[in-house]
């Protein structure tokens, strides 16, 4: 009695699922979440139910029930495909968030490097052993340091730091482990005997586990008025 109505409903269902299966294949739009694989699996899932619709039409139109045997597989695979799509979209979102965070971090890092290189004074990152791991352009200019692309910093020619209060030699390592320093005047004595008066400040860095991880050392050439 209901068979003609059911056939009509199955035709509607088949057309709907067929459209849903074809549109993602012909649509070029792709987002970070809905990737090619998601679109293909969605199309396949919709195609499976288009097949179920065709099978139902044939069955309820009293043509053949042969394809009904395969409907169960199609239905099970449909749910599995939807679950795969959900899981993949979640993973794609996490990946997209990571990519965005990494891009943002790179932008912030570039901005910070630009700021550091724009500062006319010198900025150094000194490790706990006294090794200089970073020097900005100001430091390279004032203290004759050179940085290579690998991140190592070399100092040529060799100067020595003199503390005018004690008249003793000091070093970047002592500054790095000596705690915070605010505007302390030191002299850099060059091999040819000339001296450069520099004002140093430093801030200790804490490494993992709370140990001292070196210092950020900033300095500028002293300016004398009058």
């Amino acid at each position, binding site marked *: 009695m209901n068979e003609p109505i*059911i056939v009509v409903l199955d035709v509607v269902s088949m057309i709907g699922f067929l459209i849903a299966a074809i549109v993602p294949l012909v649509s070029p739009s792709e987002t970070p979440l809905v990737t090619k694989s998601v679109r293909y699996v969605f199309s396949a899932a919709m195609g499976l139910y288009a097949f179920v619709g065709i099978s139902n039409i044939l069955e309820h139109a009293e043509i053949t029930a042969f394809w009904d045997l395969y409907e169960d597989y199609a239905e*099970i695979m449909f749910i599995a495909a939807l679950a795969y799509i*959900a899981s993949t979209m979640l993973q794609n979102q996490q990946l997209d968030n990571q990519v965005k965070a990494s891009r943002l971090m790179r932008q912030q890092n570039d901005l910070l490097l630009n700021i550091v290189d724009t500062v006319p004074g010198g900025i150094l990152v000194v490790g706990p052993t006294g090794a200089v791991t970073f020097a900005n352009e100001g430091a390279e200019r004032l203290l004759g340091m050179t940085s290579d692309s690998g991140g190592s910093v070399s100092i040529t020619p060799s100067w020595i730091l003199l503390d005018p209060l004690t008249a003793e030699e000091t070093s970047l390592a002592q500054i790095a482990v000596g705690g915070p320093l605010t505007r302390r005047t030191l002299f850099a004595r060059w091999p040819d005997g000339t001296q450069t008066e520099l004002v140093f400040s430093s801030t200790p860095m804490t490494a993992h586990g709370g140990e001292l991880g070196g210092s950020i050392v900033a300095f500028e050439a002293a300016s004398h008025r009058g």
Partner: protein
Amino acid sequence: MDVHRERPSGGGDRVDYQPSEVANLILFLAFGPVIIVALRRTMTVVPSMCYVALGAMLGAYVFTVAEGFIWPVGLNLLEHVCYAVAGVAFALTLRQFRRVAPPAESAR
């Protein structure tokens, strides 16, 4: 000629359902919430037709199992109504999705 597939009984004298239909319903009940949670987490606006489509699929699975117990003719009709609604709703979901999807600029 009766071309309808015989429904192997799920047990008992009065019930008539296929085990695969029950398995489908259980799977959908298990994964349906996961699918909805995933959609809500990943999309700023979930197309409303998506809910209609998933709801219709759930209805179809429920009716196809229930028709083995009660009112087989009516529930079978409702099952096919649900399939029709689901098909149309999935097609409309794609139309809605194109409007709410993030801009292609961020696509890789």
